[in-house]
């Protein structure tokens, strides 16, 4: 009876992850896109096989107990033979298995996921976590962006992480393990992608009301395209092209916007919210909470608390005309 339930559980354990291997979004531990993550994923499959064998033998023993429950003639004393079996299965075999796992995981795999030594990589990205968005800076350039970290394909990047407020944790499952960003500390991790693509990640240390909407996207691009992107991001904001957009800029500078946001090349130098110099070049808004379209941008500015309750951005009670102009201006910041 107990054996039957166990077999169901075993079936689940074996089949479940296999069914998973084919689906999922782009935040999937089982779809590695870098050497470190491949080592971790490989470690997982090996441990799953080991765990399957261990679990299977326990369920088998339980089943044996059930199947032989009616056999006659037993004393009420445990024999010394079984004590030997307990030592064999409970001490000897686990010790061997654990030592092997320890050497494999905690020496070899750990080495391949180690953080780079400072200066050991050709490129560095600084990530500063905020409640609830990610700021990314590219040392050596003026580029500052948010929630969308571009890297060149095949180039190891030293990600240097800090936090502006509470503890956050940077994790992009398809690229590497995670690293906590803790006040007073600078933590580093190796970021590398061996094929172009968008890799989603999410804050994985509980950080308050909008912990759920603190996602990040790593965009791996061929080197040439990455260089072009970085050149553009490093430039000051382009001047508004239409009259409407110019009115939008005035709204931005006159209203509270500029107190919190920076638009390089304008007097707006706030440092509470994300840098908006090239906001229109980003695919999403509010740390991947909504897509970056004019309609969504308008909804976001009109009432941020409806989109992301608790976010630090207040609703400004702008008129319809002001809102239209502001959206036109921001949408031009490519």
């Amino acid at each position, binding site marked *: 009876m107990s054996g039957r339930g166990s077999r169901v559980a075993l079936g689940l354990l074996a089949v479940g992850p296999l069914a998973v291997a084919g689906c999922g979004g782009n935040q999937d531990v089982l779809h590695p896109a870098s050497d470190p993550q491949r080592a971790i994923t490989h470690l997982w499959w090996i441990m799953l096989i080991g765990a399957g064998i261990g679990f299977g033998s326990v369920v088998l023993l339980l089943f044996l107990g059930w199947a032989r*429950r009616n056999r006659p003639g*037993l004393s009420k004393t445990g024999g010394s033979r079984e004590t030997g079996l307990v030592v064999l299965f409970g001490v000897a075999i686990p010790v061997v298995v654990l030592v092997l796992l320890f050497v494999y995981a905690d020496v070899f795999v750990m080495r391949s996921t180690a953080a780079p030594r400072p200066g050991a990589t050709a490129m560095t990205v600084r990530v500063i976590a905020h409640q609830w968005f990610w700021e990314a800076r590219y040392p050596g350039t003026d580029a500052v962006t948010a929630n969308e970290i571009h890297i060149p394909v095949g180039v190891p990047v030293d990600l240097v992480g800090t936090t502006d407020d509470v503890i956050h944790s940077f994790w992009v499952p398809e690229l590497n393990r995670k690293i906590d960003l803790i006040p007073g500390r600078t933590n580093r991790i190796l970021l590398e992608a061996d094929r172009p693509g968008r890799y989603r990640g999410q804050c*994985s240390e509980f950080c308050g009301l909008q912990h759920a909407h603190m996602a990040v996207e790593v965009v791996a691009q061929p080197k040439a395209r990455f260089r072009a992107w970085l050149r553009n991001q490093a430039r000051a904001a382009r001047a508004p092209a239409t009259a409407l957009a110019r009115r939008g800029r005035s709204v931005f500078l006159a209203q509270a916007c500029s107190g919190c946001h920076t638009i390089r090349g304008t007097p707006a130098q706030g440092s509470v919210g994300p840098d908006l110099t090239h906001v229109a070049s980003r695919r999403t808004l509010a740390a991947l909470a909504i897509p970056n379209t004019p309609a969504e941008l308008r909804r976001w500015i009109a009432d941020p608390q409806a989109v992301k309750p608790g976010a630090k951005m207040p609703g400004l009670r702008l008129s319809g005309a002001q809102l239209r102009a502001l959206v036109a201006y921001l949408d031009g910041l490519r």
Partner: protein
Amino acid sequence: MTVVDVAGARTRTDRLERIWAHRPGVTGWLTTTDHKRIGLLYLFTTLAFFVAGGVEALLIRTQLAAPNGTVLSPSSYNAVMTMHGVTMIFLFVIPMTTGAFGNYLVPLMIGARDMAFPRMNALSYWLFLASGCFLYAGLFAGSGPNAGWFDYVPLALRQYDPGANIDVYALGLIFNGMSSTAAAINFITTIFKLRAPGMSMNRMPLFCFAILAVSFSLLFALPPLTINCVFLELQRQIGFHFFDVAHGGDPLLWQYLFWIFGHPEVYIIVLPAFGIATSIIPTFAQRRMVAFPLVAIAELLVAFIGFGVFAHHMFATGLSTITLIFFAAASMLVVIPSTIQVFAWLFTVTGGRPDFKAPLLFIGGFIVFFVAGGLSGIMFAAIPFDQALTDTYFVVAHFHFIIFGAAVFPLLGGLYYWFPKVTGRMYHEGWAQASFWVTFVGTALTFFPMHIVGLLGMTRRVYTYGPGLGWSGYNLAETVGAFVLAAGLLLIAANLALSRFRGEPADADPFFGGTLEWTVPSPPPPYNFAVVPLVTSPYPNWDRADREADALRLARGDLVLDEGHETPSSTVRDARLDEILEMPSDSPWPLAVAACVALVFVMLLTRHAVVAGLAAGLTAIALCGWHLQEPEET
């Protein structure tokens, strides 16, 4: 059976009934020092908190059933999620295992008439009740703890959490810890000193070994938590800088102190479950535990090594490699005592003639979940895997297999197993087995898919998630599972509630159990044992000759202790009869002291330092009253 002087035995038990009689009615319960009554108070109180924690769990699962759920707002989700953890750990599992099961069973299993400090035992209960009400009063007043059950700073500092929420948490846990500390001291003394003559350490029931290990763990694990919460309150209320980088503090200090408590805590939660398993298995396999001394040592070792693994909760914080390696090695080492126990249980079952009644079924389910959760636990000792999957739903799956599958299943089995002892009636076996299967399927369906969504990148403590990440189907399955699980638990509750009134009468020993609680009538009389039992093996109830000798001694008046409110004490290792202890009587003072302490905490929370000081003075006066009331002479 030998001829017994029935009249002599009757006279003595009548006298014991008079000496140990409870006060009638509600007063009797409010002033009780009887470990069985205190155990029952604990049982019903923890069950109430279990219902609260369960409702919170269902709210969480309903919110997460589909993407972009709107059942809970982000702020209420955070409070519900935090209170679910705080409730299940501090207000359900610990007080249920030690307070309810430990209190009721330890004296009965070791042949004592009460706990070593009966009034302190009552105090533990009242403090526990008050601390639970304190935490829930905070929740209902809109200031429920909301920074997760491990309450990391700086998120929990005033700057980011300005309300009283975190003060409720910190003061509530200090308050709750007082109760657990008192209980732990009581268990250690009881187990060391009140064992029946002849019950040397190597003959002590394994359940008592587990409670002993848990009590020592609590005693050493709670001070770091208490100190941490004191630091937090000093920083929040008076402006100290323990966790404040700008003034030389460090937020990691909180994590270290928290997990020095928090990991031993895991073993505090599961060890009593191990103890219940080692009680149920020999009874239903009808044989002694295989490798009894190894299992006893393993129980103590788990508790000890459990103190050396805490930093594996911090593998992603950027610790040095040498620290990582040390704690990973220790985390692998702690596996060994657990594998010893697992195989001792398994070989006891396979080599016996197991009777798969409901209690043993629950132990079977326990072994399945414990092994599955243990194996995923080993994975977290592989540092890079831990660093990838920590703080995801994979870890949520892992620890729910342990805390629900491994810790609560034996409790459920234990509820059935000792139900006839406590109530004198049998539960309904058919419905009990059905309830097992519903609970088992519900548990597997709720927590197994969490492994998968964790691997798919779902982080824990998110109040919602978007579509398109491949998580929706698994989350829906988990929610369905949670309701199946709730149905299973309701079946158990209904079975026990109905059986309490309509069940078949049960005799003293319906399952042929081996330990001493099965030698006394069901339900046990207030004095537990009419005659002090003399023990010669770990399974005294299977030593028929010894028990017949006990009956003869009762008739003869040999070691009956019917002259006063008395219990024997014995030497720590060999359990030679040491002296006869006069036990304190019922008393209203524990309740009074707990009420004064509660007043202190309420005043600290509401920032009335002066009134809090006055209440502390009141507590001191109540303690004087407690000690001035001498044990009543009979």
